[in-house]
């Protein structure tokens, strides 16, 4: 079960040696999801140029994403395969491509609901948001396939730059604009750190490929100060994107300011992609996973868990609360990365999948509550008071999501948490586990607070309400599906576990 630090780089190198020469159909097949998404981007762009029609853009984007999901089937058959020296499409990548595509698809349906129809809704141009989301998704796909620092950077920027635009999409709203600028500045700072780290690492190892760096670091034995510094700075850059403490300051503001479906994308697809590339970097370069850096990671994990949960404790804004809770959740996930062997990769997969599901559900409910767009999202907790007695099914969805975030059995979140604890126990990370127990106990408080608010007696206050026919809209259907899936995976997680188990094998061998 343990990773064999020697054999991984070797097998990858041999892959490249064989496949690097020319582009065959196999390569195209392996890259098919990415190609389909890119084609969709072009088609959507041309369609917008031809005729602005909200429904048309939505249908085209949805169609393209579904096609991309379908194209995963031939892609899986063609992989694992290194497509150029930048990208490695293996089962590990395919799993996360699927996850990103599903999350994007869900966000797109939410956007459609959020924008409203011809009469009411978003006042500005609606179509470009789809374009930006698709672009960001393409960046995410590149990112999860990256096996080379250049690939990593291209993917990361392709992911981040459209997100600036998405966060500030409702730019006539001060908070949205402010959030966009904030995210852009901090994200750019993160990228600068990342680039500097890469440069240092390159200076030390003389290669940009993950496997090459790993081999080099393993060969030299003790890590040089420069390599450690390089990896440390890369970690800072990635931690910015993942909003790990102490690089989390942007998170609540951006989550609050961004339009709800964009926040959903930010919390799911964007974070998954960045986290996956971090896992790949740190697990494929085994030398990166020991010594000082592990200590730093542990401190970051504990700080994220505690700070995230503590700051969420008294939040009265649901979006900010979810933002803080996502900080804590990525702290939990770091435990698996720090453990680094055994079930770690599997745990990351399961946790990310359940987290994506849960976040989509939670943000989905906020989106539908704020639908159609009317200047301000329904994100204050008091607007959710007594929701159960007005919208029982919407409330049921949010309740399942809160329980899932808290990790209570019968929901998928429990399975994810179970996995992380399992990995922690397996690798004897007692301090991290203690932080996790403490964090969960704190977390339960605010998840319960949200939950019980939904059921409290209804005040005479109806500022925002989900439209009565929300269940008929695509967004509503998607939400119900997400909630059912979260429940189903909580009761019978075996299919997900098999999928994830299958997708990690390719990385190990």
């Amino acid at each position, binding site marked *: 079960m343990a990773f064999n630090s020697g054999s991984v780089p070797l097998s990858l190198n041999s892959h490249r040696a064989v496949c690097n020469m020319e582009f065959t159909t196999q390569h195209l097949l392996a890259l098919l999801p990415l190609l389909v998404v890119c084609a969709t981007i072009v088609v959507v762009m041309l369609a917008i140029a031809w005729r602005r029609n909200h429904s048309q853009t939505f249908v085209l984007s949805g169609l393209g994403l579904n096609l991309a999901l379908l194209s995963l089937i031939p892609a899986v058959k063609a992989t694992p395969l290194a497509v150029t020296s930048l990208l490695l499409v293996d089962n590990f990548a395919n799993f996360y491509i699927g996850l990103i595509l599903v999350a994007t698809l869900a966000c797109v349906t939410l956007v459609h609901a959020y924008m409203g129809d011809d009469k009411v809704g978003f006042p500005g141009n609606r179509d470009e948001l789809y374009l930006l989301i698709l672009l960001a998704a393409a960046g995410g796909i590149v990112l999860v396939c990256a096996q080379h620092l250049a690939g990593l950077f291209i993917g990361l920027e392709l992911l981040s730059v459209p997100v600036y635009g998405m966060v500030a999409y409702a730019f006539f709203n001060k908070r949205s604009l402010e959030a966009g600028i904030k995210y852009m500045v901090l994200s750019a700072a993160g990228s600068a750190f990342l680039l500097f780290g890469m440069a240092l690492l390159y200076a030390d190892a003389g290669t940009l490929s993950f496997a090459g760096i790993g081999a080099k670091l393993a060969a030299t034995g003790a890590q040089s100060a420069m390599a450690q510094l390089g990896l440390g700075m890369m970690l800072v850059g990635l931690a910015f994107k993942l909003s790990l403490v102490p690089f989390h300051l942007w998170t609540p503001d951006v989550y609050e300011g961004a339009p709800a479906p964009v926040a959903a994308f930010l919390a799911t697809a964007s974070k998954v992609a960045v986290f996956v590339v971090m896992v790949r970097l740190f697990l494929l370069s085994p030398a990166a996973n020991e010594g000082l850096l592990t200590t730093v990671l542990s401190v970051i994990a504990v700080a994220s868990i505690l700070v995230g949960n503590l700051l969420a404790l008294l939040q009265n804004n649901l979006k900010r609360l979810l933002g803080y809770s996502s900080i804590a959740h990525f702290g939990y996930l770091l435990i698996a990365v720090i453990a680094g062997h055994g079930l770690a990769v599997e745990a990351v997969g399961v946790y990310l999948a359940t987290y994506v599901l849960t976040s989509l559900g939670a943000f989905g409910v906020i989106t539908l509550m704020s639908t159609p767009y009317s200047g301000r999202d329904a994100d204050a907790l008091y607007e959710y008071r007594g929701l159960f007695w007005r919208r029982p099914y919407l409330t049921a969805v949010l309740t399942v999501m809160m329980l899932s975030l808290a990790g209570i059995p019968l929901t998928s979140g429990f399975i994810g948490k179970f996995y992380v604890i399992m990995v922690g126990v397996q690798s004897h990370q007692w301090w991290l586990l203690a932080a996790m127990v403490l964090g969960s106990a704190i977390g339960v*408080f605010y998840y319960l607070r949200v939950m019980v608010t939904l059921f409290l007696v209804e005040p005479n206050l109806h500022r925002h309400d989900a439209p009565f026919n929300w269940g008929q809209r695509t967004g509503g259907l998607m939400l119900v599906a997400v909630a059912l899936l979260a429940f189903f995976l909580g009761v019978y997680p075996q299919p997900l576990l098999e999928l994830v188990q299958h997708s990690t094998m390719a990385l190990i061998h």
Partner: protein
Amino acid sequence: MILPWLILIPFIGGLLCWQAERFGNTLPRWIALLSMVLLFGLSLWLWTTGDFSRAPVPGADPVWAHEFKVLWIERFGITIHLAMDGLSVLMIVLTGLLGVLSVLCSWNEIQNRVGFFHLNLLWILGGVVGVFLAIDLFLFFFFWEMMLVPMYFLIALWGHSGSKGNTRINAATKFFIYTQASGLIMLIAILGLVFVNYSSTGVITFNYADLLKTKMSEGTEYILMLGFFIAFAVKFPVVPFHSWLPDAHAQAPTAGSVDLAGILLKTAAYGLLRFALPLFPHASAEFATIAMYLGVFAIIYGALLSFAQTDIKRLIAYSSVSHMGFVLIAIYSGSQIALQGAVVQMIAHGLSASALFILSGQLYERLHTRDMREMGGIWGRLPYLPAISLFFAAAALGLPGTGNFVGEFLILIGAFKAFPWFTIVAATGLVFGSVYSLIMIHRAYFGPTKSDDALRGMNAREMFMVLGLAVLLILLGVYPQPILDTSAATMHGVQQWLGAALPQLASGSL
């Protein structure tokens, strides 16, 4: 095939209740009552037909009276493995009985969101039955955590608003956080045990029978045992971890209090008997003295605090702490007689505490207060109820002829041999017990009246519930043999586990 139905009936019944709400408030009540009667009947049938001489004992693969096994999560060898022996059947019969009662006692009390209320009520009971049946550790934990959510809702949504800023939501949250955090510690201990087992056998399994054979070093065993113990100690509740209990009880609706005192606390004792002791016999033996201290302290402390309460439900809640202290002593005494006493005590306390909660609920419906300073002189204003309360108060203080007496007597006599001093101190708890029980009766029912208006008498439903409980309690007091016979084999096994490890330690320490 019958065992999963014991769990499914409450869950399905709960869903039906929820949906039946659209046809009025009465239908959900009847559905809930029906499913609980069904559960009770089924458990009684299993009790009469099962062979309860089959129970797990050390040194052999555990055997059960009824068993059910189906693969669940293949990846980790997790199965839906349910099994029943003498201990679990008694607990499930108790669950079924109190389930029926908690539906009945909410008949008038709960008037809004009736369907959703019964959904939560039934799901609690389903989760509890799951805890009593599961012998796959993952499944056990699954039910253990799962039953918190409906209990939380029950307290938070239908509870009574408390005094002095003690809102029902705070009480519910406190309950949830205590049990959830301690539950996670147990999960870590479970996984620790699984991996210890994995490192020697190479198989990941959560199965009770396989984990019983785990070989581990003394230090590891002790730490893992502590992980289990903390989770059970919070639910028990053992004194430093008890502070959620009075709040939760005081704020909960009557049905919630009945479930909490009657069966939820018993899941902890059951967990110790089923898991903590057999899985970690040596560590438990080593820990026995500390557990004794905790138990004795809980008995005295619970009794003293009970005496000081003005809220009648808080008083009963603290008396639960005191009574469960006896059970803790019995569990760690390593004596078969005391263990048998613990079973009787658990059942008797389940019946008497539930009855007292039901009575205080009925009192609340009439007076709209739980504060004993507002009561007084009720004896003259209300027929029957004070007298019945007096009976149950007498039962709670361990009057001969009631089940509580049998339980406490067996516990004290069994524990005396190995732990004489602890037993002597614990016995003083009986004296304190009479003090707080009688003061409760005195404050609530005697003394000067606050008003001369006659109160509404008890109707047939209310009468039936408490008199039924009284009859059962007397039956248990004069003829406990069927209970003792049923649990004998299981308790014998537990005794052997602990007894084998205890002597070498006991000779040194006391």
